């Protein structure tokens, strides 16, 4: 579905991505893991058309979309980003937040709103509340629900577990699996490597602008070097 080839991005003189290549097959959950500054967010932002790559190609459903640098066109093609730190609209109601997610669509939204509410019943209870008054977990639900309103084929999520309690994080990952079952391909980036690898079908490890490892979620989960670098020895609590 999505194929990235030799993608390079510069911020001024700094090379954020030094030529990465990876693939996201249709219907799968793929994750990019890595430490701060590895270039995970930059990768998603480049795919979403929010920043312009220096070189390389991004193919989505056979079309090269790397040259567009037009976020609206890319949302229109079926790629939606759940940005890092949720970034819901604080002074708009939950319902308005959802409607903005479907901004480019011209058809009726009733069924999609119902679909989001059935995934997140909590949002329905709070549909008239301002986004800024929700708790962190609810805001993350809203951010995911808002992205789903665009009816994406590929949902990209930037650190959905950021700043959330472990129990909430587990709930969010359950939802990610549920959304994936409904037919949405997911590209997930995470610092919480443990949770991400358990959820993903396939995973890539990023280090300072490069992809250094790849494998299925389970392979990487049991890999001793990955364990050491990203998972620690924290498996007791599971």
């Amino acid at each position, binding site marked *: 579905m999505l194929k990235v080839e030799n993608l390079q991005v510069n911020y001024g003189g700094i090379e954020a991505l030094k030529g990465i290549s990876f693939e996201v097959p249709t219907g799968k959950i793929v994750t990019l893991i890595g430490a701060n500054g590895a270039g995970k967010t930059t990768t998603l932002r480049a795919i979403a058309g*929010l920043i312009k790559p220096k070189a390389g190609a991004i193919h989505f459903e056979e079309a090269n979309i790397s040259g567009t640098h037009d976020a609206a066109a890319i949302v229109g093609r079926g790629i939606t980003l759940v*940005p890092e730190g949720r*970034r819901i*609209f*604080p*002074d708009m109601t939950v319902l308005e937040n959802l409607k903005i997610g479907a901004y480019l669509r011209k058809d009726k939204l009733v069924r999609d709103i119902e679909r989001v509410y059935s995934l997140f019943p909590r949002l329905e209870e709070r549909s008239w509340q301002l*986004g800024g008054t929700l708790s962190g977990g609810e805001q993350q639900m809203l951010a995911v629900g808002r992205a789903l309103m*665009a009816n994406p084929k590929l949902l990209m999520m930037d650190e959905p577990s950021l700043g959330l309690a472990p129990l909430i994080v587990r709930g969010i990952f359950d939802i990610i699996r549920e959304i994936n079952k409904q037919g949405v391909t997911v590209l997930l980036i995470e610092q919480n490597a443990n949770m991400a690898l358990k959820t993903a079908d396939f995973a890539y490890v990023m280090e300072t602008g490069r992809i250094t490892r790849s494998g299925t979620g389970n392979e990487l989960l049991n890999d001793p070097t990955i364990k050491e670098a990203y998972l620690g020895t924290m498996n007791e609590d599971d």
Partner: protein
Amino acid sequence: MNNIKHRRNKKILTAVNVALLLAIYVAVFVAEQVLPQTSMLFVVLKKGSIYALIAVSMNLLNGFTGLFSLGQAGFMLIGAYVYGIFTIPEEFRQSVYQYFDGGVIHFTVPVVIALVMAGAAAAIFAALIGLPVLRLKSDYLAIATLGFAEILRALFQWKIIGPVTNGSNLLRKFPNFNDFNIKGADGKVAVYLSTLIPFIVAGICILLIVLLIRSSYGRAFRAIRDDEIAAEAMGVNLFKHKQLAFVISSFFAGVGGALLAMYQMAIQANAFTSAMTYEILLIVVIGGLGSVTGSCLGSFLFIAASEWWLRGLDGGTFLGINAPGIFRAGFRKVVFAVIIMLVVLFYRKGIMGDSEFSAKRIAERFRRIFMKRKSKIEVVENE
């Protein structure tokens, strides 16, 4: 069941809102027929309705889209001049353009068309300066728009274009609000409409802005205000929408400028200072950023206070106290500044915040008071 009840309630509340609005218009019409024309009330109503329109147009930009623009006076100036230039009757042009040999324009258009032209001219200018200016953010945008407004003020007084703008001389003798009063056979005014007209024009314009704010475009504007990055990620084209808000806001500022010209019966570019923009900004902030009714309310309160209620502070006698030593020219502004500081201190987010004044709000307020009383009664009974 609940849903049907909810919908019916909503319908009733909408009907009450519409009835309230109609009542205001009827009250304005009746007051105009009954009260003497010299009453200060009409100054407040006329100027207040015009400022309300301009404040709402500024609120669309500053409150709803989050673009801090200070160009309002410039767009008003364009609107006022376009209106004046194209409506001065031919027989007066020689005397108005006396230093420019009657000017170069020798045709007039009907008032309604001139009002639309005034808005359109301001909108076109906004579209042009929007291309570079809207790439700036917050304070920088404010400085740039303020600069353009000042440039316009100087430009319109330039002698070279005097045959069109009359240079630094007044434009006058164009149709004003009094021309709309219907005269009887004896030449006396039979039906006064001079206050209702600005109310109607401003009302229509504000209604259009409200419809825009409630549409999906309005939602996109507010999304940009709340979080540009998220809005862009949702597929909202930032520049296109900012440009749209800027152009529409300027259109209505242009119409507002034309109305102000009609009210003042004369136009002079030098009057459209940045102080005028600040007055409108003040109204918007006092009324509440992001509240249309707040801007309207703020506008009438501001005009009433500055033109009417506090006049005595400048004139020697205020509230029956005669103290020419204290109450003299300029004291009004001191008191006014204190009042504004108090309002800003105690109503941090303006009178209305970002909510709207409506029947629903009043109903809820009453319900809350009623509930409180009921619970008090219950407490007393329990004791």
